[in-house]
């Protein structure tokens, strides 16, 4: 059984008018079943309002399912006795770094989680050090978070989750507010956690270039999984992705244009380097 598993998960909420009278029901999540194995890097793509964030909030019990079940590491998240275990197993990083940093200095912020869990003081400091090192922020440990860039703040947020020793980390559009440099820093840190520390990663985003290294991509639309597969399988479906309001990586579009001009290049190559190598091979013969 996977570390995160959902079975026919559905979430409905009642829309109300100004006076609070019910107007109708919105089914934000509509029968999602997934199974994520330990160590996997899974990305969820989807346009605004597709249900991807709502889905993520069910995993550590921020929202409660209307129908269906969610298990984290075998524990049913609907059982109130499991909530704290679940949140420790599956840590969450949100979009806006300013909303999740509370400490006056970086190391204090990162130590907040383990301190709350009752970890002995000596071990807290060990955890703070290793977590900050994992996201390459250790040299900023004495700094005020206010003086950091967006990308750095977001890495501190990730370290704060890491210090709780989760098996799994869920990132809800962690780069939406960052510039290209900051986005790169954060994604690099996330990939390292997955590959080096073997932490299961669930990355929610609408930037397609952040997910080309994922093991599996799920595309959500209208609360359902509309498309899933390896990044190659998903991104080769250009028309379907456009229907789903998403971009297609330019390397796929480039291969397509070249094929239209009569030059045969595989249409499922992802990554700038990979694409350049493929074209170079064609050139040098």
């Amino acid at each position: 059984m996977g570390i995160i598993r959902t079975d026919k998960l559905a979430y409905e909420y009642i829309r109300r008018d100004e006076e609070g009278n019910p107007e109708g029901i919105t089914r934000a999540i509509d029968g999602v079943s997934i199974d994520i194995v330990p160590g996997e890097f899974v990305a969820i793509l989807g346009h605004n309002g597709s249900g991807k964030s709502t889905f993520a909030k069910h995993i550590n019990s921020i929202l409660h399912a209307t129908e269906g079940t969610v298990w984290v590491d075998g524990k049913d998240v609907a059982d109130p006795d499991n909530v704290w275990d679940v949140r420790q197993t599956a840590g969450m990083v949100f979009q806006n770094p300013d909303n999740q940093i509370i400490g006056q200095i970086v190391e204090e912020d990162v130590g907040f989680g383990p301190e709350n869990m009752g970890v002995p003081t000596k071990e807290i400091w060990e955890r703070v050090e290793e977590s900050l090192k994992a996201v390459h922020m250790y040299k900023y440990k004495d700094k005020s978070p206010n003086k950091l860039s967006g990308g750095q703040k977001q890495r501190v947020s990730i370290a704060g989750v890491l210090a709780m020793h989760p098996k799994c980390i869920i990132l809800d559009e962690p780069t939406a507010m960052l510039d290209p440099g900051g986005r790169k820093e954060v994604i690099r840190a996330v990939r390292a956690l997955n590959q080096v520390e073997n932490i299961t990663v669930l990355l929610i985003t609408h930037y397609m270039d952040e997910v080309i290294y994922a093991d599996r991509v799920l595309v959500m639309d209208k609360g359902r999984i509309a498309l899933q597969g390896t990044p190659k399988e998903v991104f080769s479906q250009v028309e379907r992705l456009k229907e789903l309001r998403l971009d297609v990586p330019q390397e796929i579009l480039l291969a397509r244009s070249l094929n239209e001009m009569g030059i045969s290049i595989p249409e499922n190559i992802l990554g700038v380097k990979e694409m350049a190598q493929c074209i170079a091979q064609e050139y040098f013969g």
Partner: protein
Amino acid sequence: MSIIFNHVNYIYDADTKHSSYALKDINLQINKGEFIGIIGHTGSGKSTLTQLMNALLKPTDGEVYFEGVDINSNGYNKKELRSRVGLVFQYPEHQLFEADVFSDVCYGPKNLGLSKKEAELRAFEALRLVGMDNEYYYQSPFDLSGGQKRRVAIAGVLAMKPEVLILDEPTAGLDPKGRDEILDQITRLKKETGITIILVSHSMEDVAKYVDRLIVMNQGQIMYDDTPREVFKHAESLQESGLALPRVTYIMHELKKLGVPVDTKAITVEEAAMEIASLLRK
């Protein structure tokens, strides 16, 4: 002539030993009716620049002129300036607060002292300009999608009938379709009203497609100020200053590194495909 920056410096903590330049010796002229993009990495000074334009910040040195008058001179009417130079902040939907869309858009013009009727007429016009259908007018702004909320917030500024509209990262946090919709709408608005538009962004791909003139900020200074095509020619130094180029441009650079004699100036998929095809056919 509408906005002029004359040797403007903006220094944080000016009189302390921690002082640092947010903007350094900015000289800039923004003409009536221009469609300008300002790009730069986080901390490059682009937001500071826009806040100086409507006197939310005061330059440490130098002057900012609007229509020939120094906006920081004594007795200058800053309230009037801010209705003529409208600034839409980042994540403007966070500033929506009224019970319905229509009242929210009326708030600005009412505050200007206009009659209820005049304010409502302006709200109708502004909502039309951002492409919001009347079915939404009496809905709570909080029930709208991210892209729609943002359009309502932009309408709130347009209802003040500004001569210059500054948009700070209008597409941040929107999905690709929402991003295209907002930018197309702004382009249409530009065509219809002839208003001066200044679009702040950190995405080259977004801005380059739409604007006539691109100002690149780097470490508090103007690095380039030219048409997008001319600016893109400086691929390497743009990359060094923390800006992302279109992915195809990176592919071209990578090809060159691998020894393929390719011209790296392509910025669209079509241009890159043509260039690669002509090489491979040889």
